[in-house]
């Protein structure tokens, strides 16, 4: 047994070890400052403000989760904002013009997103065209497509989509919150048990305790905010997407392949990874998530403005992903980091609004924060080597 102890277990994925905790700390600090600063007049921690903050983050997070995977394989997608407009337009047209029921319209929009992703994946992996160029073309084309399809007219989504922007009943909210914690705790404990079963170095009690406490804290915060009035459907969707994304990247073969491809495509290929198919699948996932975000946004603002809907969303998503510690050079990053990055990004915007920072100045601050995040990343990497 002494040998087992001599070899430290792989610390639960070093690629999002310390950084994620540090970022959670930064986020906590931001929240504390915003809560205590007299200039925010005690508004920050109110249910209303936090609900708005999280609902606004939801659309961005859904896209950012997909963007994380694309960036891990050293790709990029600049067409996301335009894709949101196009898929929203498709849903609105199917419903309003063709009179199809909402579920069918939703499926049509998701299929459209999948097709966009497949198109990107095909160009990138089969034709070897840089993703930057392929999706830059999409950035132009999909916006144009949305404008053509809609005759450049704004459309209203109608009541059938309102459930997306609605709120879950209190009982369901508590059910989801408790259920999520139960699943998380079960998985964590099951892992610890199976490590023992395979006579691997046991998870250290501190790590275990921190993980469990983290989950409880997260659930606690969410229930404190939403327990009284119910959780917005947008937040539920975003949370589910983030959980699925974290699971996919961290626990599945597909996830391992993402990191291998991003780290060294040739080595991945020679290890038997089907690089083309994985690349294709990654872009398709982002495409579907783009469509989902398109539907969420359309429901939230109750309409589609094809010329403006989702503009800058791709850049916001990339910003959130990078703030979250994912390397644009590929091979490193995590969905958990992206969740935190998105929250930092959204908190920043929310906080600046509360502090009545001039909206033009906000752009400048956002840019500086992005640079600071990358600087921290670079500095922490330098320390390691």
């Amino acid at each position, binding site marked *: 047994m002494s040998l087992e102890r001599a070899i430290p*277990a792989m610390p639960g994925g070093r690629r999002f070890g310390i950084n994620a905790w540090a970022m959670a700390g930064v986020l906590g600090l931001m929240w504390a400052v915003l809560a205590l600063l007299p200039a925010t007049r005690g508004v920050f921690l109110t249910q209303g403000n936090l609900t708005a903050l999280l609902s606004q983050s939801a659309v961005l997070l859904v896209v950012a989760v997909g963007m994380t995977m694309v960036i891990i394989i050293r790709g990029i997608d600049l067409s996301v904002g335009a894709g949101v407009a196009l898929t929203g337009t498709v849903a609105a047209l199917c419903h309003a013009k063709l009179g199809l029921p909402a579920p069918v319209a939703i499926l049509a929009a998701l299929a459209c997103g999948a097709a966009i992703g497949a198109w990107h994946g095909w160009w990138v992996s089969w034709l070897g065209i840089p993703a930057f160029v392929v999706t830059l073309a999409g950035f132009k084309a999909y916006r144009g497509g949305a404008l053509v399809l809609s005759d450049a007219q704004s459309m209203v989504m109608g009541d059938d989509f309102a459930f997306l922007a609605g709120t879950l009943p209190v009982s369901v909210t508590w059910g989801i919150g408790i259920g999520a914690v139960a699943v998380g705790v079960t998985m964590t404990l099951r892992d610890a048990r199976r*490590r023992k079963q*395979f006579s*691997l170095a046991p998870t250290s009690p501190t790590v275990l305790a921190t993980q469990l406490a983290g989950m409880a804290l997260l659930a606690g915060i969410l229930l404190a905010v939403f327990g009284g009035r119910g959780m917005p459907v947008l937040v539920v969707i975003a949370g589910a997407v983030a959980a699925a994304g974290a699971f996919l990247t961290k626990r599945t073969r597909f996830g391992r*392949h993402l990191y291998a491809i991003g780290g060294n495509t040739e*080595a991945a290929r*020679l290890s038997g990874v089907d690089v083309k198919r994985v690349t294709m699948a990654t872009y398709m996932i982002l495409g579907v998530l783009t469509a989902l975000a398109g539907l969420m946004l359309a429901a939230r603002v109750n309409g589609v403005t094809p010329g403006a809907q989702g503009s800058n969303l791709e850049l916001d998503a990339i910003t959130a992903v990078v703030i979250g510690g994912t390397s644009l050079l590929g091979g490193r990053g995590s969905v958990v980091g992206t969740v935190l990055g998105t929250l930092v990004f959204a908190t920043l915007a929310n906080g600046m609004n509360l502090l009545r920072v001039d909206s033009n100045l906000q752009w400048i601050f956002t840019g500086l924060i992005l640079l600071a995040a990358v600087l921290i990343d670079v500095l922490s990497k330098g320390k390691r080597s």
Partner: protein
Amino acid sequence: MIELRHIGKVFPGVRALHDVSLSIGKGEVLGLVGENGAGKSTLIKILGGVYAVGSFTGEVVVDGTVQAFRSTRDARSAGIATVHQELALVPHMTVAENLLLGREPTRFGMVDGVRAHAMARDLLAKVLGPDHGIDLTAPVSHLGVGMQQIVEIARALADNARVVILDEPTAALTDGEIERLFALVRARRAAGASFVYISHRLDEITALCDRVAVMRDGELVEVLPGNAPTNDIVTRMTGKELGDVHARRTARTSPRDDARTPVLEVTGLAVAHPALPDRRVVDGLSFAVRAGEVVALAGAMGAGRTATLSALFGAAAGRAQGAGKVTGRIRVDGRDVSVRAPKDAIAAGIAYVPEDRKGAGLVLELSVQDNLAMSAVATKKLSRLGIVDAPRAEQAALARFRDLQIKAPGLGAEVATLSGGNQQKVVIGKWLELAPRVLLLDEPTRGVDVGAKVEIYRLIEALVARGHAVLIASSDLPEIIRLADKVLVLREGQLAGTLEGDAITQLAIMQLAMGGSPRAATDMPSAKMPAAEASVGAADIAAIDHLVTDMRPPIVLPERVSPRPSEGVIS
């Protein structure tokens, strides 16, 4: 002239250097040897100013003055220049521009092109002599690797460097280029310049160096005279008598039975040249590898060793630069296999350890565990319904980690932080979970230190004993002699001859590889047949030296070498 006094350096958890004191005299070539991880690179990084003063203990003294380098720039201005394996030249700029980079002569604020050219010309003539034959107006990328290295050394010397640190300078050079490099070093030594020469190739060290400093585990073991026997150096490097590194595997564990179905059977394998479809880099090759057998592919650079292996694995097919069409019949255990991509080969039980360990074998930023698990996970082992069984994967990786005695802080360590030999063990180890029928190994011990080399040899022998079939491509003749049951010598893509048993000698391989045709003699100057190491008798060495000298073309090479597209320049 330059002195290192009581140098110590600690990385988190590792003592990289401990109390190293060393001096470098004027007009001296000091060899620096040691296994990977012995502390050589840390030491030269301190000397070269990469590690700033304060991050280590001890003193760097130049001409009696204690130095405090904060950057490589400081070291440069004190006369210490480092030429790394990865060259620091700008590929698209010309030789002249590179030579004067950072101190271009200007007139009215603009670069004075004419004067710059004249300056570069004079510098190069001063360092290399008037007949250097380098085109100052050629982009550096048009020069061969060896010539680029010479340009970089010239730049360092032109910058009034008094000590030039050469870090593994010959790793990518042909014999002709090595000669030229040696001539340059000797000439500049005579003119009073000093060199620190780091190499794994002990024959080079003994040929060139005045003294040899041997390092082990972060300490300076001993400084030997340059003409010390290589065995003495090896003994001090490893700290143990290795016996004979290249002792031939004598006890064949499994009796060979030629009547059995071969594990791997290749018939009429042909690989077209990637750029010229009419030419073939592998041309009608047929052979078989049986269970418990090591077959080696030998031959000069460009003879088709690497092309054969990558064709068998389907590795060339998807490459961006494209590869030639592969034809021929591949059978594993008597069944025809259609190999269009690596995954087909893997499914058929073929595993491949590529020559380029860092570029194609490993994902450097991932952990040892993730690298070890990669092939297994890619082939749906260790996972269920697409979900990786993490504890099982870790257990499997842990078993490999111990079996292979990989030296790393733990399974979670980034594979980039491991030494070359341990990285190579990871590359081999990632296949073992799949229990492949055939292992294709391309230069399995390149850039690996002596100790790890022996471990890898033992590993290969153990795999063979368990009934795997092994096909090795190697330019290291002692390695082939140690490992191979059968040697296929290739020449220009064709089988030049087969050697078995006691017929496998360096001389026999060389003769077959070089062939008798005049074309072979002129067209393959780069046949990189490493001069014999410790185990080869003196008579052998003499014979080989003679042969190599005969084959080697005059050293005035026109250095516009276009890299052979069929195999990497290094091959």
